[in-house]
């Protein structure tokens, strides 16, 4: 416990100034300001450690950070929804400018045109990337964005039955269940090769590329869903859309995604960025913020938050969602990233991932004892390998050579939809961050179990 007077460097007013300010109120101590708190509950004991200087906190956190194994410290092949991609220096340099970093939600458009114009750019680039008509101004992450997409599809169709393909991320499926638990929505997990959609199904939910890496026929899913008056809701990897036809091309109705690959560090799972796009006809059922272009009183172009009557601060319990603060700073990061990568760069990165992943897959397939069960179908940067030993054991051995292997999908929930003969599966991810040497080292490590 600290007993002597402690002046935090975050608090400018000194004890003397505080005393003078109290005097204007006719008071002599700060404690007097808290007389409304019942005395028995006032100033409770507070068992926290004593304050640290910046020098000390940097040491403490440096030591804690040093006990984690960062992706960049050796070859890493773990993906499954969070991806290790290169982030140009300008992303951090621009997004940490105080004018962006320390601004609030742009409720005062006259002094928030920077943030508002960035969001309008974000909406433009994301809707374009997904081939959709409209994008909103950000959701929390890919999982919650998909869950909100499901709730929106139920509102649009006024139905409460949802078909989720068994190749959707098992993590996302859990979040969908959490979001739907109070609404009497029936979640049915359907087989991806034969999804059952009924005439009272609100939507068919699929992932592109799917959780296990494969590229399924979105056009066929779309026809199936629409044939039953249901919507097609797709969770897509925005980076893959740098080279692949996006879900909008196949007439999907709602397309969500995890924006993390677009210039956002993996950061142990957050903050990330939920992407959310849909057909224009559904915008009044959309959750979260939208920025629109308009004119000021002098006829100049400007940007404002718009269609706010959908939102909680206006509509309260009848809002399309409760979402308020979301991930605007990372919408900025992804906008800077997409601006810098541009038309050519994004395609190049997507193709690097594709070729490297396919090179890795072809090398691993040659190893005795390893098989690529889904090899017959097209894939992007992730693929499943059936291993000759338990994936956890293989990963442990790989880590002895400082190689981070893929996700062990031999355990629930990842193994839930897999066929019984795929009992030692590993989901590997290869991106532009993995050099040929990295991939060859992985193959060498795996070969020890052949």
């Amino acid at each position, binding site marked *: 416990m600290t007993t002597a007077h402690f002046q935090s460097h975050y608090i400018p007013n000194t004890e003397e100034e505080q005393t003078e300010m109290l005097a204007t109120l006719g008071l002599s101590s700060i404690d007097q300001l808290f007389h409304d708190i019942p005395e028995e509950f006032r100033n409770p004991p507070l068992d926290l450690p004593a304050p640290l200087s910046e020098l000390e906190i940097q040491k403490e*956190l440096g030591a804690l950070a040093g006990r984690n194994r960062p992706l960049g410290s050796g070859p890493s092949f773990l993906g499954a929804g969070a991806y290790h991609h290169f982030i140009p220096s300008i992303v951090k340099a621009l997004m940490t400018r105080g004018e962006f970093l320390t601004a609030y939600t742009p409720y005062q458009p006259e002094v928030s045109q920077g943030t508002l114009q960035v969001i309008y750019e974000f909406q433009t680039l994301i809707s374009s990337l997904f081939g959709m008509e409209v994008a909103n101004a950000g959701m929390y992450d890919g999982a919650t964005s998909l869950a909100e997409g499901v709730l929106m599809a139920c509102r649009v169709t006024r139905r409460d039955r949802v078909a989720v393909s068994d190749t959707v991320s098992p993590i996302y499926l859990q979040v969908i269940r959490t979001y739907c638990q109070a609404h009497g929505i029936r979640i049915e997990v359907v087989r991806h090769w034969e999804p059952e959609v009924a005439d009272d199904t609100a939507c068919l939910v699929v992932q592109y590329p799917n959780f296990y890496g494969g590229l399924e026929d979105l056009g066929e899913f779309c026809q199936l869903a629409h044939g039953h008056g249901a919507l097609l809701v797709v969770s897509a990897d925005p980076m893959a859309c740098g080279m692949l*036809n996006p879900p909008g091309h196949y007439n999907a109705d709602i397309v969500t995604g995890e924006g993390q690959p677009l210039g956002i560090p993996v950061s142990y799972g957050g903050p990330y960025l939920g992407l959310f796009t849909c057909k224009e006809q559904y915008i009044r059922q959309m959750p979260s913020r939208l920025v629109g272009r308009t004119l000021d009183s002098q006829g100049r172009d400007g940007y404002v938050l718009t269609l706010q009557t959908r939102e909680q601060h206006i509509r309260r319990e009848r809002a399309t969602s409760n979402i308020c603060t979301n991930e*605007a700073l990372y919408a900025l990061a992804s906008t800077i990233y997409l601006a810098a990568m541009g038309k050519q760069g994004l395609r190049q990165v997507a193709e690097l991932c594709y070729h490297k992943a396919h090179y890795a897959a072809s090398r691993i397939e040659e190893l005795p004892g390893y098989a690529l069960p889904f090899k017959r179908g097209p894939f992007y940067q992730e693929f499943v390998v059936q291993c000759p030993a338990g994936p956890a054991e293989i990963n442990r051995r790989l880590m002895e050579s400082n190689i981070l292997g893929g996700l062990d999908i031999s355990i629930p929930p990842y193994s839930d939809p897999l066929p019984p003969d795929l009992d030692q599966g590993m989901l590997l991810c290869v991106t532009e961050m993995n050099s040929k040497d990295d991939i060859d080292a992985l193959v060498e490590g795996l070969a020890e179990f052949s």
Partner: protein
Amino acid sequence: MLKGGSRDTSKLLMERSVPGRVGVVTPELDVPVQPLPDGELLRDNLDLPEVSEPGVVQYFTALSQLNFSIDTQFYPLGSCTMKYNPKVNDEMAFLPGFAAIHPLQPPEQSQGALELLYRLQDFLGEITGMAGVSLATLAGAHGELAGVLMMRAHHQANGDAGRTKMAIPDSAHGTNPASAAMAGFDVVTLASDAEGNVDLEALHELAGPDLAGVMITLPSTLGLFDQNIVEVCRIVHEAGGLVYGDGANMNALLGRAKLGDLGFDVIHLNLHKTFSTPHGGGGPGAGPVCCAPILAPYLAAPIVTGNGANGSGTDSGYSLSIPEKSIGKIGGYHGNFGVLVRAYTYIRTLGDAGIKSISGNAVLNANYLLQALRDIYYLPYDRTCMHEVVFSADWQRLRGVSGLDVAKRLLDYGFHAPTMYFPLIVHEALMIEPTESENRDTLDAFIQALRDINRESEEEPDMVHHAPHTTPVSRLDEANAARHPNLRWRPSE
């Protein structure tokens, strides 16, 4: 758009695009070229801009300069706690050992991260007087959703599914009723009394077998500590309901009172308010949920537990675990880790002594403003305020100048506007929250500006009515924006 000084921002990215310009050089492919998939899968219409790296830096820097922010302006936005965001917090979150670890790495590769989260759970539990903490929720409203789902799960587990009503004060944030609705509750409005406290008679009427609980913001959005709070909790508990606490205003209470002691069952905190993590123009936030022992089994997954006996933190390491009757996973991974690192850093640099000086100075600054302005701005609740003071522009309104006009005119003086027209129960509300990180000189300049604007409302009401006059754009046509939504750039324009 902005004249003089910065580079022009009027052209959007697609309008700046010149074929052949590149912003990033990518590495050469170092593996043999692989066969491409079926051509029908490949896209040929990627409409992204082509801009050089200097072009990107210049454009976004110029855009940033169109913003007000805490680093550049006083930002007395009520209920938003726009305090200084320490730079060391960001620096720590960017350490590769934190920023470059994957959420699905095995626990032995992320023990440092898990230990940090475990300690943060402890700190937040201690500050709020709560037994259980989950850091998995990604923003304040996300925490609310988790909290009310926990209340629902608790009632269902007790065979009490008939508790369908959630009572919410008329002064509450819009997220409260929206979250309650997302958790399947019917929202009923709870009136406030003349003192700004929850109206106990109204509460008694609602406190029946169908009451699931109440959602209370403390201090209230009127900036007042509810003098009836202990009685409110007692009445709700007696009727079998639970008390939810919206922690948006915790900056007033740090080290002064623990919500758990007062009788709250479950609360959320806004780390991007009280614990100084930057708001980023609308996020990222983090909304940890803290709860009493009876609700701890329902916390959102995952939580961090120690591998020692009874889940305690020991030398045997830490793991992610799922509470016994958890409402489930509510986000993709384990919460907004980067934000949690920032909050941890903040709490450690303040420590036991500093935490209390936060609330003390925040409340002192607000009362200093209250005292200096009460003669010219109407004060609807004449009491000692907490971290924020709610005035009304009713007196200015008599001269044809609204609360909106006053707020907009402040922008010309280089101050961000207060929160306006909220809470809904105060006519022409101006809700001012100075926070502890502003010095007396700034407060004095702000007081002077509000006094000047009051004088202007007498002498030149029309000028005030058309403010702001010095910002990059003037008042925008929001009705037109909603009537004819233009939500993205299109080539035909």
